[in-house]
């Protein structure tokens, strides 16, 4: 009966969570500072126009994930670069002209359009520390080519993109050994420390100036123009006309300097994306903020309750599903001899799939980003401790008790419900507890596909290389894990019969 009550409660939470539908513009962004800032500007502009709600799904991993989210309709619009559209998103049109008209001819059949050029070109480039560059006399990319001893630290995406490292190698005949893949925000630190020599940068990166880096000239004109534009679903203008009109005012509104400054506002001055967008749309320059907001203010800042709710929802629903599926699976594994190894093997293998890989894999299957794939992934991860503990708890019941229940003539179901499950309850509850605590940690990954939760702060903290923001996400997650521990202390007293408690 208690379990039924819990199930109903969770169902209610789920329904209320999904029932908040009205006309909504979903804005996406990739996982780097500029994309976050532009996403927030688009969201704020759309919402201010009135008539719609606008939601910003922040930092949805790499280009591939954001683009598939756009194609499947999970988001309506995000800021993209013409070079990326031509070289990466429309690979069969490789080498096509970069004007909007040519791009839209290719995008049209996908139900997508590109438009509203924002006014700046954010091209890829390679950069070194000025002192290193000067010592070797490096000025352009061709100068690097013959050197075999340079250590490259490139972002994962740049390494794999057809307009990235592979193009560099074939155009410039780079002799350097295989570059190391490194998180972009961390690459600067490694560069300054001298752990690596060359990094990939965006031309609007504020770190270039701050760290006195030398950007190498693309003397063979490998990189195309990366003019920032909005990439959107073709039905957006008709669906949200007022918001669309408001977005037109962004045309040509941001020049390279302005973008660099806004990136610096986020990365160097620690302003929130929200504040940057607001001050941009108000037409003012950089806000005169003397001090960064205090850590406590950021910890419990505006989105704290929303993130807590989202995180809690992810953990509670996935572990509840894991329990409803995992306990029967564990029972099955314990009583069907042929089923034991397949079941335990399968849930064990699930656990070995890296979480980001599983999430990326689930997006095309479920045709969506956000909560659904995150829940499925967390649910699959929650199974192992629950199934295994249920199986072990049931298998460890003393043979004399099993025999005694049988000899009494108790029907099968009663034997399970009144004798075997209560005797195994300690192990089962411990399994669910382990699952819940692990889930709190794993759920932080869900932010990479727009499912929200504390991971949002961790992801943007990583992108901005902002340790305070990282901690503002990691600390509440740790606290939530402890809370779950405590909660299960109560659940144990409630479910496990007194004589069986340890």
């Amino acid at each position, binding site marked *: 009966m208690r379990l039924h009550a819990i199930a109903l409660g969770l169902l209610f939470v789920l329904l209320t969570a999904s029932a908040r539908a009205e006309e909504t513009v979903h804005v996406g962004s990739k996982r780097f500072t500029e994309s976050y800032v532009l996403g927030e500007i688009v969201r704020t502009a759309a919402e201010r126009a009135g008539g719609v709600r606008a939601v910003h799904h922040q930092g949805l991993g790499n280009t591939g994930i954001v683009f598939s989210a756009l194609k499947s309709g999970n988001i309506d619009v995000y800021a993209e670069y013409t070079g990326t559209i031509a070289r990466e998103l429309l690979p069969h049109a490789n080498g096509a002209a970069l004007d909007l008209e040519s791009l839209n001819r290719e995008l049209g059949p996908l139900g997508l359009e590109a438009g509203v050029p924002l006014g700046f070109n954010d091209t890829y480039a390679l950069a070194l520390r000025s002192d290193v560059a000067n010592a070797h006399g490096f000025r352009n990319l061709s100068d690097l080519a013959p050197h075999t001893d340079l250590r490259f630290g490139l972002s994962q995406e740049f390494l794999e993109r057809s307009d990235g490292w592979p193009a560099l190698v074939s155009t410039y005949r780079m002799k350097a050994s295989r570059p190391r893949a490194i998180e972009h925000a961390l690459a600067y630190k490694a560069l300054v420390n001298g752990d690596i020599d060359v990094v990939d940068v965006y031309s609007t990166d504020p770190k270039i100036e701050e760290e006195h880096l030398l950007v190498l000239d693309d003397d063979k004109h490998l990189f195309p123009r990366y003019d920032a534009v909005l990439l959107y679903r073709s039905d957006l203008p008709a669906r949200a006309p007022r918001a669309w009109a408001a977005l037109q005012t962004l045309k040509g509104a941001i020049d390279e300097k302005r973008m660099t400054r806004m990136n610096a506002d986020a990365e160097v001055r620690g302003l929130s994306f929200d504040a940057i967008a607001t001050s941009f749309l108000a037409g003012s320059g950089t806000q005169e903020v003397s001090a960064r907001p205090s850590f406590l203010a950021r910890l419990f800042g505006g989105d704290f309750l929303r993130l807590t709710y989202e995180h809690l929802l992810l953990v509670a629903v996935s572990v509840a599903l894991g329990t409803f599926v995992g306990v029967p699976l564990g029972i099955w594994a314990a009583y069907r001899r042929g089923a034991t190894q397949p079941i335990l093997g399968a849930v064990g293998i699930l656990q070995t799939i890296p979480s980001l890989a599983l999430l990326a894999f689930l997006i095309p299957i479920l045709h969506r980003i956000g909560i659904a794939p995150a829940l499925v992934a967390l649910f699959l991860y929650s199974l192992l401790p629950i199934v295994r503990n249920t199986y072990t708890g049931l298998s460890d019941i003393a043979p*004399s*008790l099993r*025999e*005694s*229940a*049988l*000899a*009494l*003539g*108790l*029907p099968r179901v*009663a034997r399970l419900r*009144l*004798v075997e499950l*209560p*005797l195994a309850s300690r192990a089962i509850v411990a399994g669910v507890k382990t699952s819940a605590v692990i889930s709190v940690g794993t759920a932080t990954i869900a932010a990479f596909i727009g499912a929200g939760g504390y991971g949002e702060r961790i992801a943007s903290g990583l992108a901005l290389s902002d340790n305070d923001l990282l901690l503002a996400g990691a600390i509440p997650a740790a606290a939530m894990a402890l809370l779950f521990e405590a909660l299960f202390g109560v659940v144990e007293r409630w479910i496990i*019969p*007194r*004589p*069986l408690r340890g």
Partner: protein
Amino acid sequence: MIEVDEVEKNYGRATALSPTSIRFAAGTTTSVIGPSGCGKSTLLRIVAGLIPADRGTVTYDGEVLGPENVNALRLRTGFVLQDGGLFPHLTARRNVTLVAQVIGRGTQASREERVKELAALVRLPEARLSNHPGGLSGGERQRVSMMRALFLDPSWVLLDEPLGALDPITRRGLQTELRAIFARLKKTVILVTHDMGEAAYLGDRVLLMREGRVVQQGTARELAEHPAEPFVSEFLRAQRSPLEEEVV
């Protein structure tokens, strides 16, 4: 009456029970005795339907034990294990009434009446029934186990070393009481034990087993006076008397 007819059980190449036929007469107590591994527990478990025989049949009052009636027959059979087999998460009272409650036998009041009656029969103070098995002494646990076995007023009672884990004084006391209970209730009882004194004291008949077969059956006196083979005398003499050393 319980009839065992040509029942046989092997584990791989090891014989647990050679083809065996026995009749357990209605209203009598039969003690099954023998050294460890003689097949006495296997025999009892096959009779209880807890493990299947390789061949042969077990018949309860003319009804052949099979998968379709095993649970119905279990409800008419009381079963007591060495350590009582009581469920540690339930109170003694709930252990006793569990099956009746699950299958809906009787009313709450009639079940309560039955608990009182049985508590008196096994001489257990009713207040002890609120304890969980962990809070009872070994002797008390066996009394509760006996109450549970008798609750549905079974026609047959099977006991597997019921007093095996008790100290000698408790054990002797319970032997006295069990004999009184068997005499009073006139059930068909099969008692497995390895204690010859207990077998002789509680059983109307004794059935001696060795290496998976019945060596001899009869009253304890018949076994002592007309042993079927030397092993019978050897087994009867094996129990050491406390003063043995002095006698020699």
